[in-house]
């Protein structure tokens, strides 16, 4: 039973490492498809009365001189065409819009343009927000936890964020401001899971019957104790996120995708990474002994 649990955790850990590397490779190769929020450019949402496939649309747009555009068929049946500021200009966009109107009776639902400089400012700001969030969360962890647990929780955090970014790189779904918000929410969520498990580990280490037990066994028990909580919370949150994905419209689908991925890998990492790593770093009851000797005395004094 015990070896079983440990095996699962080890497999999870290896899987996590593999996924992180795969994500990093994907990001390095394919990059991330930053949305208009970050790059600037032209977004045109059009409605085409007759049904066309993505390939047909691509061909048609190519004939109209639209190259290197990102073409998406949205859930409500409208087409979203995104062009970077360097690839086109105001006049050209108007030109193909009117061409498409006369040839396919397409109507423009929404057209927007954003300068490239705005994007640069936003990347700076977004990066700053991410960095700030990470730093304050690390600071919080350092105050809150024994260093082995804190380091493991941060690694789990890194794991969750990188894999989510990897998914966006692999699928080339646009990374916009709402995805950034989702990433920050994932940071909070992932940490929360790690802390609940970590707290259990600490609690059990103080219990008489686990004092002499190998730390792996203590961790197993902590995971078992908190498993139902972790699963229930993840499932209810996942259910709400999926309902956003399904019903809340095209504007929030990438946001929901990021959260969905983040919550799923966050749950796995809280079990396989943030709880497993401390074991290899030599976590034991003795780590707490000096720091909390008084608390220990009290515990020992109890019958």
């Amino acid at each position: 039973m015990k070896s079983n649990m440990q095996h699962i955790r080890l497999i999870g850990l290896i899987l996590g490492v593999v996924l992180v590397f795969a994500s990093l490779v994907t990001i390095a190769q394919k990059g991330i498809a930053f949305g208009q929020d970050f790059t600037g450019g032209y977004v045109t949402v059009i409605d085409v009365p007759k049904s066309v496939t993505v390939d047909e649309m691509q061909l048609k747009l190519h004939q109209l001189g639209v190259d290197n555009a990102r073409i998406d068929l949205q859930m409500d049946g409208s087409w979203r065409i995104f062009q970077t500021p360097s690839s086109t200009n105001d006049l050209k966009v108007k030109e193909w819009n009117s061409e498409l109107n006369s040839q396919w009776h397409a109507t423009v639902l929404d057209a927007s343009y954003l300068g490239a400089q705005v994007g640069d400012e936003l990347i700076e700001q977004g990066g700053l927000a991410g960095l700030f969030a990470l730093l304050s969360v690390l600071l919080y962890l350092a105050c809150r936890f024994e260093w082995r647990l804190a380091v493991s929780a941060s690694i789990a955090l890194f794991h969750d964020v990188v894999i989510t970014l990897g998914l966006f790189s692999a699928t080339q779904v646009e990374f916009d401001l709402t995805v950034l918000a989702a990433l920050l929410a994932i940071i909070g969520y992932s940490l929360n899971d790690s802390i609940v498990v970590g707290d259990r580990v600490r609690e059990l280490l103080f219990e008489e019957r686990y004092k002499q037990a190998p730390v792996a066994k203590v961790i197993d028990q902590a995971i078992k104790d908190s498993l139902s909580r972790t699963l229930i919370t993840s499932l209810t949150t996942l259910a709400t996120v999926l309902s956003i994905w399904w019903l809340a419209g095209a504007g929030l689908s990438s946001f929901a995708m990021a959260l969905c991925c983040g919550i799923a890998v966050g749950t796995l990492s809280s079990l396989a990474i943030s709880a497993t790593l401390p074991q290899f770093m030599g976590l034991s009851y003795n780590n707490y002994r000096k720091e909390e000797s008084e608390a220990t005395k009290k515990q020992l004094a109890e019958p």
Partner: protein
Amino acid sequence: MQNIEQLNSKHGMTTSSRFKKFFTAIIIVILIICATPNLYPNKNLIQVQASANNVLVVSVPELKNNLENEGFKVKKVISHQGGYLVELENRALTAEARAHIAALHNELNVKVISASTMPLWLEYTGLKPIKLGLDLDGGVLFVLKVDVEQAMLSQLQSVADEANSIRINNRYRHLSSPQVVNAQEVEIVATVQGKTELQALSTTLRDRYPHLSSNRKAHGSLTTLTLSFPEAKKIELHKQLMTQALSTLRSRIEELGITEAVTQRQGDNYIRIELPGVQDPDQAKRIIGATAKLSFHALQTAGGQRIKDKLGNVINIDPTAIFGGDEIESATAGRDEYGKPLVELFLSSSGGKKINHFSRQNVGKPMATVFAQYYVSTSGETKKHTEVISVATIQQVLNTRFSITNMQSMERAQELALLLRAGSLDAPITIVKEQTIGPSLGEKNIESGFKALALGLSITLLFMALWYRKLGVIAIISLLVNLVCLIGLMSLLPGVVLTLPGIAGLVLTIGMAVDTNVIIFERVRELRSKGATMVIALKQGYQQAMSSIVDANLTTMITALILLGIGYGPVKGFAITLALGIVTSIFAGVIVSGLLSESLYSQQRQGGK
């Protein structure tokens, strides 16, 4: 004896929790009342009134016919303050119908207004529904052009004025009056005898404007001095002017009380502003579009800049300001002892020093307050309008705090104070695009957002009921309390705007709020399996779970606050909902469900006896 002790302790417990119960109930009731206005969303009406000095000639049937002929279905028309209020069947068409009426009757003043539909008693409380963002409620979009060229031109003009002033004061007779030519450079021509004068003027000017490049050319007997901005300086100035315009506009919008506004740079010279929920763009337009600049000047008897005051009298002022609008830290409108409107200014310490230094040497002399504003003329050109708004005699040595008296009206005073608070704008801005976004797309977004909320909520509630049975009922009640409290809190707090990502935050909050209950209930289950009675298990379960709950919410709070601080636009909406959701989750998950389970199980035990 033991019985009495037990009774005592029990009595003590109930009084303390009665107190707690009372407060909890009060908070819930207040927040429920705050949430109720959301059941009565505002409706958009078209207000039709005769414009000034006109009589309302159009009749109700005529108005109705006009609209129905164009395919707008009119729900009802009521008379209101000498005009009419028109309500359409389809509120999404309101803005379109307004444009139609306005085009037909240009003698009318036609506006879209947002009217409350609340019952009278609720209206009386002054509560309002949550403000909706541009994506949910439509709103106004502005694109502004920042006229950097004009700003550079006006800087050159002040160099020319300054040069002219030096020329007159020093009696340089052999120099032409400095002129701005080609909107690029300042040109001064000297005759043969004027060479030394030109040299002296050039040196003085170079001292005052070190960043200007000067160039001297001789042709025939004349020498021409040209002053201009070097290319690098132009680029720097351009960047500086854009940054200033952005930050000033942001603070103006904040002064208007619109927090969800998006202010972004668009292209090289444009700024895009989205004002959600605003249906009548006129006030916003006046505040945002104004390029007001205030400066304080000494008077001159001859030369200098000639500026008219309200009555048309020409006043000569020293073109170099004692201090400008950027030294003003804060400004408030008020009234003096005679009830006349005034604007009270608070200067920065450097501004205070400047005015102190100047007023010390000039007690008894006049000082002019100059107000400059750009506007677009009927031919579409940007023009500068400069006016002396007051000439006051300096009565005493002035410091960082003083007032501009004799304002035209309280409204003018308030607007001037607002503009001064928001900071100065050196480059004129003009609105090049203005669009009132109808609420039809918003209605679709609200519908889909709330569908997602309903689905997420029902899955969660169903799961809790099936998994925890009786305890689940507590979770369900506390979740509903949580949702209502969150909506109440969002309606209560000013500046909270609900956007589509905000609804996502609401849905996510529901998903995560269960966590608090789950952590507690899992502890309770564990304690129960160890053989504790329900009452003890509940009590200890709440205690043991507290540290996990605090941690869980604190980590989310950290990220929510960072998002709130750095993000803007839709992300800010998400962050606000998330942060407020944490507060209500703790309230509902810990306090409300704690009290509920206490009363539920103690009643059951009594009933069991």
